């Protein structure tokens, strides 16, 4: 996908202006409320007309104020998953799901309804009225409906905001699976750092109607470690849990981790706070913590009294947050060998 945008729009006192080119598939739009994220979404979808500028998607001009081109939403083939789903209340699940598909020209129907119904586990809900769906089912249906219209780009406008944590982590695997399986590029709009990290690779950072910065999701998270806030969380994909006494042993890349929590068969995502990773100069003789991982320092970042240490553990990355005094005492620099110590109870399962 190649999206080229250079637009300006004034709405009352709020002025929005952005110029950027995006290539790739998994983009995040991040910023606080009022930063212009939603305005950008509406402009890209054709629901809001910019005052001036130009938008092209894969070489097709969607909007050009000079050439007086402004494709209406139904001709842009840009799908939207809205925050509140906006399922049609007078149609059942099946009719909602097929609404876009029936309006897609036959030649462009690359995705079959059966595949989506299976991927999103909607089979048992098809004849149900949308007022009898749970929050998670509603968002799954909204996603399926949009994907079935076979768009060239999907815009997701805070689709997880308003769902509780547990539900959110039930939906995310569906989102990532479906978008990867059907190979659809997307822009994920959110003000949640966690969601952005789980869903996207690269991020456009918006503030006060302007594009402030473009960076990777990882850089955005590390920036948060330095700036304060909730601190940095390591997101670890762990697999094949096996009983280990009364604990559980997981594969983490080439390494092994001991956890308190049991997990599922496939990919399990765990969160581990950078503050919960303690560093030792040498292998401690005995400790209450169950994970002792020999590793090498690959990077040091941060400023003031917050330092992040990027560690390489058998090929996998792990970030530990420590204070500058510890950096001096342990004499940490790139290439130093240390032992990371993590308690078995420090991991929090996301899904």
């Amino acid at each position, binding site marked *: 996908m190649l999206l080229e945008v250079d637009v300006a729009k004034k709405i009352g006192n709020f002025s929005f202006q952005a110029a950027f080119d995006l290539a790739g598939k998994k983009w995040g739009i991040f910023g606080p409320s009022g930063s212009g994220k939603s305005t950008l979404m509406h402009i890209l979808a*054709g629901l809001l007309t910019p005052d001036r500028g130009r938008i092209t998607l894969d070489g097709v001009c969607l909007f050009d104020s000079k050439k007086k081109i402004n494709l*209406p939403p*139904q001709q842009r083939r*840009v799908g939207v998953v*809205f925050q509140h789903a906006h399922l*049609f209340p007078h149609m059942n699940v099946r009719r909602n799901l097929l*609404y*876009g598909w029936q309006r897609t020209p036959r030649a462009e129907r690359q995705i079959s309804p059966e595949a989506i119904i299976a991927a999103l586990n909607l089979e048992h809900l098809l004849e149900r009225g949308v007022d009898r769906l749970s929050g998670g089912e509603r968002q799954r249906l909204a996603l399926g409906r949009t994907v079935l219209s076979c768009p060239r780009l999907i815009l997701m406008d805070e689709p997880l905001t308003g769902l509780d944590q547990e539900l959110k982590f039930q939906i995310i695997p569906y989102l990532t699976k479906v978008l990867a399986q059907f190979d659809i590029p997307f822009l994920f709009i959110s003000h949640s750092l966690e969601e952005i990290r789980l869903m996207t690779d690269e991020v456009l950072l918006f503030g006060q109607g302007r594009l402030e910065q473009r960076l990777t999701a990882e850089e955005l998270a590390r920036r948060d470690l330095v700036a304060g806030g909730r601190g940095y969380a390591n997101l670890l994909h762990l697999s094949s849990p096996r009983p280990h006494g009364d604990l559980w042993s997981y594969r983490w890349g080439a390494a092994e981790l001991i956890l308190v929590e049991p997990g599922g068969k496939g990919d399990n995502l765990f969160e581990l706070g950078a503050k919960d990773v303690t560093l030792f100069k040498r292998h401690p003789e005995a400790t209450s913590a169950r994970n002792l991982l020999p590793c090498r320092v690959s990077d040091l970042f941060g400023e003031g009294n917050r330092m992040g240490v990027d560690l390489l553990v058998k090929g996998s990355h792990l970030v530990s947050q420590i204070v500058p005094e510890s950096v001096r005492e342990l004499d940490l620099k790139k290439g130093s060998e240390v032992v990371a110590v993590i308690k078995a109870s420090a991991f929090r399962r996301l899904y």
Partner: protein
Amino acid sequence: MMLTLAPQDIEAIVLSLKVATASTLLSLPAGLGVAYVLAFTRFPGRALLEGLVNLPLVLPPVVVGYLLLLLFGQFGALGRLLSFWDLRIIFTLKGAVIASSVVGFPLLVRAIRIGMEGIDEHYLQAARTLGARWWDSIYTIILPLSGRAIVAGMTLMFARSLGEFGATIILAGNIPGVTQTIPLAIYEYTNTPGGDRMALSLCLVSIGLSLIVLLISEASVRSFRKR
């Protein structure tokens, strides 16, 4: 007291139902169109259109009837045009239908418009991004979602037409068997010595009809809610 109806009264009841049904059904397409325009579009002259549509609601029906008489009369602009095809409006059933249509139209439009304005704009945005053109979204989103309001508007208009008097008597006259509807028949009875009992019978019929209309409308609104 027995409910006794003369053959002339039966004719009046049938005529009333004919006029109310015809005016409601004939006004519906235009009512939907005007309600859509008022609910969803912004254009210069919109306030004027709104005023014109609502005018019969605030004008005395007699004034509406007289204006229609001027328009459709022998020397009226439309009257002359229609006489070209040998069409006569005044003192005919067509006149009664036109009078009822004009007087009931604002009620129809108002109810449908309120229903349409209550539709969450996001449904329309969702439909557009899913590939629906505007007319497609009218058929698949706007009309189904304003179903209750449409039924409510039609009920109001039907009931208003059943009771229409002022404009009808001026444009269509009070001809038994041709243009004499229930209210006109009641009016005639009250002007006839000893007609009180007959007038009361027709009043009871009128009350009965109105109740039936209300019940049917309630039932259909409920069936919309269920869906």
